[in-house]
């Protein structure tokens, strides 16, 4: 059972606020959404759609002056073995480095087998990069992480993706929930020639079960849970609360 809550408070009334959300899990071979509920501030219009990578999105906004925006996305997901079928995605896009996943220097040598290589990269990251909260930003690149040798789950994922793409292994960024409370988690899916397999470089493991996926993309920019834009001079304060509990 997952619960994702966000409250955005503006310091003064804003005349217009537009949002795009990726806060609802998808059903795929590894997870089935059995129930879901969405509660949104009543003055917002919201519609469902898909983005460029077929992630579920909600988009909308409010066009009358208001001071808060809040939503709760909650539901129940049954998880199964984390193996996601290839559905004709454009692999080229997941092999091509992006600004956030571009590392040109050789960091380690890996076996030829894709899965063995992914394990080796995961392991190298675990041994060489220190998990340290708040030392990086959403804009930190894989090259910077490699240089500073520390970061959070997003940075581990970006660096793993960069190292996979160096080897021509299609790799994508994944955003979702991990059991516990706090924030969303980031991990990686690599393509082994048949399926997408999950790797969590922050915890140095191949994902078997218990991860709930929200969205995937070339890097974090394609996966943000929430994007918004408002007019006016206000400042905003955002409070997010996430839980995932086994039931």
């Amino acid at each position, binding site marked *: 059972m997952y619960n994702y809550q966000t409250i955005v408070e503006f310091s003064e009334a804003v005349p*217009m606020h*537009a*949002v*795009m959300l990726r806060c609802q899990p998808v059903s795929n071979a590894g997870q089935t959404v059995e129930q879901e509920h969405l509660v949104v501030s009543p003055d917002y*219009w919201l*519609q469902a*759609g898909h*983005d*460029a*990578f077929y992630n579920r999105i909600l*988009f*909308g*906004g409010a*066009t009358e002056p208001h001071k808060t925006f809040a939503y709760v996305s909650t539901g129940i997901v049954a998880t199964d073995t984390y193996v996601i079928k290839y559905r004709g995605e*454009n692999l*080229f*896009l997941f092999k*091509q480095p992006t600004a956030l996943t571009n590392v040109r220097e050789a960091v380690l040598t890996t076996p030829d087998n894709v899965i063995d290589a992914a394990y080796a990269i995961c392991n190298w990251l675990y041994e060489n990069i220190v998990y340290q909260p708040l030392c990086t930003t959403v804009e930190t690149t894989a090259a910077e992480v490699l240089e500073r040798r520390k970061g959070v789950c997003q940075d581990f994922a970006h660096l793993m993706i960069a190292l996979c793409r160096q080897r021509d292994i299609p790799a994508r960024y994944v955003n979702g929930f991990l059991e516990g409370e706090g924030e969303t988690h980031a991990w990686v899916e690599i393509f082994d020639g048949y399926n997408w397999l999950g790797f969590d470089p922050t915890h140095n493991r191949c994902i078997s079960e218990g991860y709930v996926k929200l969205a995937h993309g070339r890097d974090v920019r394609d996966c943000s849970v929430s*994007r*918004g*834009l408002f*007019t006016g001079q206000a400042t905003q304060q955002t409070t997010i609360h996430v839980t995932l509990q086994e039931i």
Partner: protein
Amino acid sequence: MNIRINELIDSRDTVNKWLERYGVRFGVYKHGVFNEQLFPFDSIPRIISHSDWSYLETGLKQRVLALNKFLWDVYHDKRIIKDGIIPEEFVYSSKGYMPECEGINPTGEVYAHIAGIDLVEGKDGQWYVLEDNLRIPSGASYPMIAREITRKVSPQTFTQNAVAENRNYSKLLATMMEEMNNGRGISVILTPGRYNSAYFEHSYFAEKIGATLAYPGDLFVEDNKVYYAGIYKEKTRVGCIYRRVSDEYIDPLIFEASSLLGIPNVMQAYKSGNVALINAIGNGVADDKGIYYFVPKMVEYYLGEQPILQNAPTYLPYFKKDYDYVLANIQRLVIKDVSEAGGYGVVFGKDLSKEKLDELKALIIDQPRRWIAQEVIDFKDLEILEDDKPVERKADLRAFVVSGKETRVWASGLTRFSRNPDSFVVNSSQGGGFKDTWVLEE
């Protein structure tokens, strides 16, 4: 044919003065500084014979038709890639390729509603296409207003010569926008504002075609439909946006998040078929300098016809044969960086020192896909007036092709010339001037 050349020459200063008073300017950002410069008008027109024009018109229609089919294909079935005509990296690593446009069906399946095709005429009389501009090509307003003023200064010129009418460009635009709008609401021109290089053009067209000139913040999306917010906060439904804001700034929730020029959620409304965007989003993949090489192949592939218009002879270092040729002949080729636009990133091998040539070679060896090389075309010079004396300068022609339900070519165009006698670069952003383009009637 009775060109009153002296009268036209005499009219030059008067016409330029009026252009200045009308605010015909070109804004240029360089090194973070905004400068407005006049766009100098040369009063001797470029004259294109009726038979040359018929050839160009047929060729331009064919080319733009194929480019539109290519864009549909890239964002849908990708047949041309699957059939091995274009290698996938040229499509997907192009900065203009937008995965966000996959599967979107623009109204009428048109992508390049307004295409600006840059051509040059060789000394042998053969025309060559140098570049296709399919994103938001500008420039048609300049010959329009220059002709409008010249007509007032020297009316006999146009009564005594059978020059094809050019005032119908507004009609071409208005008809196309009406067809794409499909009765959903009003049509607007979205301008980034007066600091945009082509702001004059935006306001001029809005007036000519009777569209509302919208500024950032005037348009918003509600219930997945686009509205124009009037000064009394009334809402007016918008059905068609001729947007003069580039792809990466059009929707801050999808593309560049810091953009204040765009319309949040407009991509969703567009995807749902609730608004037409002129030109479509994602067109950059077809006017990429690397894709240019493949345009004649698109004509054969999609239309089953022989291409009427020729490309300048082009080499792609990506292909081994061309790679060897380019490295061996670099000193006499033009080298273009595919990621740059507007005459930037274009170098002539003959102008470079031995060291610079070696540096360039190293760049090509490092990233072959990033470069194209072309033979230098010895293009026909046109006469321009320099201190009241005629001198010869390099010039090109931007032809405008408008596609709505049908594809139509405007019987005129923007002739740009280089004021520097040694330069082949005619871009307005590099200080060139312009002429009117006369297409002769039979």
